[in-house]
């Protein structure tokens, strides 16, 4: 495992908004992408810097903790990740209404307000061992609740109502 030393590397943005990475041993890579190694369980640690070659990725190295990066660099990486991983986190639930065969979710996410439709609780709501929930809506978009025990009581009550 090649670790990138957050104190010694440099991540910059060029005029085209593409990221350039200079590693601790003096090499510079252009058009770098960042991948989460644990996209569902850890958004802050174990981030892999890669270069895309056709349909494959060549890994430059792994950044262990994003928080150790200088502020600007951390922001660049987080922005890049936010655009790559589209799994909105549900922060609060305004309402869940049940009509006919579907549940209409009206929620606040980290990416703004959204209304989506869930068809079948048993098939499209996955409970993970770490109290997180992943919901797949009728359009195959995924939403995440990082820790349902930390939802507001009202949101929890709404959710409990439909969970089977």
């Amino acid at each position, binding site marked *: 495992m090649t670790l990138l030393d957050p104190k010694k590397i440099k991540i910059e943005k060029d005029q*085209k908004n593409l990221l350039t990475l200079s590693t601790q041993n003096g090499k510079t890579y252009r058009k770098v992408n960042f991948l989460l190694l644990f*996209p569902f369980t850890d958004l802050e640690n174990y981030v892999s810097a890669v270069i895309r070659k*056709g*349909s494959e990725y060549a890994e430059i190295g792994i950044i262990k903790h994003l928080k150790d990066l200088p502020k600007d660099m951390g922001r660049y990486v987080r*922005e890049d990740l*936010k*655009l*790559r*991983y*589209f*799994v*909105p986190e549900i922060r609060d639930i305004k309402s869940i209404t049940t*009509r*006919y*065969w*579907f549940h209409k979710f009206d929620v606040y*996410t980290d*990416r*703004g*307000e*959204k209304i989506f*439709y869930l*068809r*079948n609780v*048993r*098939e499209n709501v996955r*409970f993970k061992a770490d109290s997180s929930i992943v919901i797949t809506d*009728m*359009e*195959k*978009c*995924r939403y995440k609740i990082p820790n349902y025990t930390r939802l507001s009581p009202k949101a929890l*009550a709404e959710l*409990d*109502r*439909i*969970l*089977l």
Partner: protein
Amino acid sequence: MEDEKIPGNIREKIKKELRHGKILLTLNTDIKYDGSFGEEWLIVTDKNMLVFSGTGQVLHSVRLKEVKEVEIVDLVGSSALEVNMGKFIYRIILYSNAKNSEFYQAVEDIGNILKGREVATKGRLKPKAVCEICNQPIPEDLGKCPKCTDKTKTLLRIMSFAKPYSFTIVMIILVMAVGSLFGLVAPYLTKLIIDDILKPDAVVKRFTKSEWLFLASLALFLSYAAQQLFSGFFLERLSGSLGYKTVYDVRAAVYEKLQELSMSYFDKNQTGAILSRVNQDTGELQRFLVDFIPITLEGVIMFFGVGALLIFISWELTLYILIPIVPTVIFLKWIFPKVRTYFHRFYHKRAMLSVLVNDSVSGIRVIKAFGQEKVEIEKFKKRSGEYRDAGIEMNSQWGIYHPILHLFIIFGSVLVWYIGGDFILKNRMSVGDIVAYTGYLAMFYNPIRTLTRMVEMISNSLSAAERVFDIVDTEPEIKDTGLPKEVKELRGGIEFDNVSFGYNKYKPVIKRMTLEIKPNEMIGLVGRSGAGKSTMVNLICRLYDVNKGEIRIDGEEIKNIKLADLRSQIGIVLQETFLFNGTIYENIAYAKPGSTREEVIEASIAANAHEFILKKPDGYDTDVGERGNNLSGGEKQMVSIARAILRNPRVLILDEATSSVDVQTEKKIQDALEKLTKNRTTIAIAHRLSTLRNCNRLIVIKDGKIVEMGTHKELMAKKGLFSRLIIMQKEFSEQASKMKAV
């Protein structure tokens, strides 16, 4: 083109921006440039490609002349459109999975615009169907709007399954009505006993008071007995038989459909989900028919019957009774959602627990091998504890609401005694009236209680029914055309003509592949893991249909060949050997129902399986265990080769068929196969390249494309991917033999 969809304010801005130029394509996205939810617009004119923000600002503007290519880049949960300008690649717009098909089509259209071609009108993806009622797009694999499918329709659907038993249904209603009638007799008899026999100043004729009392008691008993006979004995029998018979029919319909459905259905739906539809949801349907419907009907009959009697005995008292009924109903409406939450949580925890047990029992080998028993026990205890707590919580919640509910009902009876007692004192009612009245009142509350809950239970059952009918209504993607061509004897020539295919049609796995295999040729497919070899084979068996292009067998498009004819002449050894729970003999004979024992033994000898079967004490009757787990990996492969050979197919497909057997055995199998492959088309896939030395031609696949093709010699001379692979494997085995020498 479709610019009427664009909001007015943006349309103004676009017009300003595009004074010259004709709009060819407009499309809105659901994610903004910064990854948050919101709208942006992609507009393509005959000169430019632009992206507008939701407020009408121009975010990107490129000239079509400078664009080399427009591409979709898959991200996680979303995708991006990238414009290749030769020197630079711009990412101009993001969109979520919901917009996949629109953008997929748009990229094709833009490609055509760039090449100066007409935007194709043929072969377009169907625009997303939109529901007529709610105007929401209908998800692709559903076909009908899940939001607006009417519940009454589902109810009718269930009833259509019950239709063959309409005589039973009529009987049920009759029996129920009679039973309820007898139920109504008892309180009235008590009234007669009290008012006409027990009252000190009552006048009796013909019999003495004690004789009357005996007769009345006897009648009381008989009425109860008759009620039990009808509402218990007859009703249970009838409704039971109706429910079980109907659900038997539904289950059969579901299972039949499951067997018909195409592979893609099973890719999309998890096994667990399908199983629960077949088992749990049909079970729910059963409860609906066996329990809910009779209870509901009975409730309705009692409600009106008893209600009428209450008014008949004393309409004034009935008015008073209505007072506590109103808050009772409100209370029920209020608490059921609350109690239900606890019930749901309880069921959910129970389901989670059984998932855990299921998982750990099927993975018991791994658990033991890694010595994780303690960890598993801890996990189980944690889940089980949650289940326990949910149960306790449910009970204590019920313990709060249930007594309150009871009090409401008791309050009704108390009211009867208080108000009714006053009526007695004023001589407007008799004691018997009041006793009868309280008796009826108890009967009256029951249906109210059940009816309030029934609405919800029925709605749950209907949802389950809808999931079941979902399967029944799914059209298999792969089926015979109207007039399929019967082909009794394939020659075995296979052609790929510009074939593209992806399990997800937006992500091709086979890309524009063209290939011709002659009858009786033996072809070897080579390529790295994930290159698409097994996928090609899946297409030849028509387990999936191609997205683009054509596959032809003997010059006939595969879609026009009768499926049964096609499949019966293909013998395949799948990469993942699967054996059914049963004996070795049963597993081999599965390929050809009605085959003789000689044939099975011949096939086993050809597959070199006979040798190891001889060594088993139970011979061909050896049980292979669940999924064939009692056999070794290589033994399983030999059995499945025998299974494929027994079919005597025109096309034989061996997908890594000998990957798990030792080299010596492989050699033997190959020698045996050599005779067999002479007069049939054979496609062999292998990573161990020595396996393919008998092949007429080798085809090297990379990333869903053919990169090299030719005989072993030709490919070696070419010094391409294949020769590199051969050299690598050779070096590897030389190294290994050196290590042995040391």
